[in-house]
């Protein structure tokens, strides 16, 4: 049988998503949360599949295989073995697991077929369903779309089936995972435990803790003491980067919480309370675990280099979204080139599962550019739909035939400190807004960070904003010459440009003068024109680029939610493709 049209699915845990591959080309990928408005939804991706089939005028009869991003039986083996090892503890956790697995996850193939049948009748029921392993899916999502023919691969997350991290090698259409670290030892779980201790939500607040860390004081005795305590009591870090978590301090194997709170409080002081504001101790704890995480990742990277001898590295898994750590990894120069899957979390697993399956049966052709189309592989809006939505809401608009003129107009308003909701072309895949569904603002205004945090995003004051910039600016101010088009690396401003930066773009520099940089080089990128127009107006080709959403909501996609966020927040201007709307 020929396998050319493949759908990959991730679902039932968090970050449900789908991806469509046709003849090895990534045609479509989207997260279900963008349709349902439930952040990190675990629901079966009905809407994403329907949207994909509609976009490409496909029926499920034309799909050769559906591939799920992990292996349920292998996961079940790990879960049963875990309960067996800790029995009689864990009973309370065992009961809900029991219901979930017996009702759905144990019979996953049937469950998927049932859902596909609801979408497309018998066509859905007859599609062959396959399974890829969790870390192979991550590895495939990182290696196959990359511009490398050969590369080392490092995957890091909380847990898949057994593996929590793996090191492998990609060579053309083959991936071999050579080394794995298994549950219960996990870098993701370690980081998430601190996320929980500092009062953030596990599985969604990790990036907030990463944003808190630079506000800690690395030179303080308290931070140094916390680092020492973490490495002495909480985790043993081995020379190859593997770790052993001291289960005396954790509860995730047997309880309903991540950690044994009282034992942690004896080490680090009181757990942060929900309404308590962040004090210096909290910031120092965040910095301490961030520092330990960076040490682990660098050691794993060195091991990957030794094992493979490759000068290229591909990264994926939720921990690969830690852009402070990946920034350090780039600066370490352990590898000459690094490529990270922009949807590095479990959503990207859908893409990886489809790619792993496709390339197990087909050859691969490597190109100089990666295969992610700058991340814009989701659904787009038709002109007629936009017109209909604007008329329905009785919004006055201007339509520009020439994008150049629209960019000039928007840049003028940005230079006057207006905030712009920016919706262009196809939706980006992954957690970060890359210019398809973004909020743009001038980085020059000192009060802009507070304004967007308080009146548009409704989120914590300390949260920084990332700059998007022309590649020349990245080189000039941050000495960044590598590809940073997916906003995956944090770098500090160079010492000789620090004063200029604080004067010219204060709202994108974090407490330690660092920024999570996105560079734009291609004139096909939806932000290329507006960055150039802003440069003409102000002398600097840089903007704040933050996701178009409110706190705790997914990035907007449907026209109704786009217009609602625009109208209900302090955004001044809305651009949808070539439509311009001003409040």
């Amino acid at each position, binding site marked *: 049988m020929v396998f050319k049209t493949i759908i990959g699915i991730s679902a039932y*845990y*968090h970050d449900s998503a789908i991806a469509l591959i046709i003849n090895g080309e990534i045609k479509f990928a989207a997260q279900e949360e963008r349709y349902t408005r439930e952040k990190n939804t*675990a629901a079966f991706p009905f809407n994403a599949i329907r949207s994909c089939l509609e976009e490409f005028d496909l029926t499920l009869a034309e799909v050769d295989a559906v591939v799920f991003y992990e292996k349920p*039986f*292998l996961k*079940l*083996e790990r*879960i*049963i073995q875990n309960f*067996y090892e800790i029995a009689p503890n864990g009973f*309370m*956790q065992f*009961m*809900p*697991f*029991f*219901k*979930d*697995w*017996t*009702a759905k996850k*144990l*019979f996953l*193939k*049937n469950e998927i077929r049932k859902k596909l049948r609801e979408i497309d009748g018998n066509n859905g029921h007859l599609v062959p369903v396959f399974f890829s392993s969790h870390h192979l899916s991550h590895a495939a999502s990182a290696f196959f779309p990359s511009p490398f023919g050969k590369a080392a691969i490092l995957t890091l997350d*909380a*847990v898949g089936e057994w593996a929590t991290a793996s090191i492998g090698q990609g060579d053309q259409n083959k991936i071999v995972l050579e080394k794995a670290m298994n*549950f219960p030892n996990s870098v993701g*779980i370690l980081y*998430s435990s601190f996320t929980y201790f500092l009062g953030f939500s*596990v*599985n969604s607040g990790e990036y907030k803790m990463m944003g808190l860390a630079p506000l800690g004081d690395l030179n303080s005795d308290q931070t140094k003491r916390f680092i020492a305590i973490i490495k002495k009591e909480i985790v043993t870090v081995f020379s190859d980067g593997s770790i052993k978590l001291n289960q005396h301090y954790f509860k*995730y194997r047997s309880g*309903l*919480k*991540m950690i044994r709170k009282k034992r942690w409080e004896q080490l680090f002081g009181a757990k942060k309370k929900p309404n308590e504001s962040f004090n210096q101790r909290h910031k120092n704890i965040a910095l301490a675990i961030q520092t330990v995480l960076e040490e682990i990742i660098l050691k794993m990277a060195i091991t990957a280099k030794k094992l493979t001898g490759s000068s290229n590295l591909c990264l994926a898994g939720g921990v690969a979204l830690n852009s402070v750590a990946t920034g350090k990894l780039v600066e370490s120069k352990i590898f000459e080139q690094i490529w990270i899957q922009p949807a590095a979390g479990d959503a990207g697993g859908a893409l990886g599962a489809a790619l792993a399956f496709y390339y197990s049966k087909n050859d691969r052709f490597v190109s100089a550019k990666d295969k992610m189309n700058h991340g814009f592989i989701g659904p787009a809006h038709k002109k007629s739909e936009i017109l209909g939505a604007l008329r329905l809401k009785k919004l006055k608009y201007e339509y520009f035939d020439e994008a150049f003129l629209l960019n000039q107009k928007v840049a003028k308003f940005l230079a006057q400190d207006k905030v712009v909701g920016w919706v262009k072309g196809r939706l980006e895949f992954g957690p970060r807004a890359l210019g398809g569904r973004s909020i743009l603002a001038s980085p020059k205004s000192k009060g802009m960070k507070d304004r967007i945090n308080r009146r548009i995003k409704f989120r914590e004051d300390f949260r920084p904003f990332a700059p998007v910039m022309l590649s020349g600016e990245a080189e000039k101010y941050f000495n960044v010459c590598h590809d940073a088009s997916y906003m995956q690396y944090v770098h500090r401003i160079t010492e000789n440009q620090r004063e200029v930066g604080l004067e010219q773009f204060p709202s994108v520099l974090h407490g330690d003068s660092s920024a999570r940089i996105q560079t734009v080089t291609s004139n096909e990128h939806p932000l290329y024109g507006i960055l150039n127009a802003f440069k003409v107006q102000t002398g600097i080709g840089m903007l704040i680029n933050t996701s178009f959403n409110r706190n705790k909501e997914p990035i907007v996609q449907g026209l109704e939610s786009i217009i609602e966020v625009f109208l209900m927040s302090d955004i001044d201007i809305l651009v949808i493709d070539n439509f311009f709307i001003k409040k």
Partner: protein
Amino acid sequence: MFETIKELFQFVKSRKKYWLFPIILILVFVGVILVFGVSTGLAPYIYPFF
């Protein structure tokens, strides 16, 4: 149902963890009985490792 049990058996055989098979069968059997009786009120507090 039978396809899944067959695949489970093949999986257990390939992993050489035969002790898993009776546990899984009991899980399926007891789970079907309990499936409508257990509250899911605890689920939101659990990190989805399971």
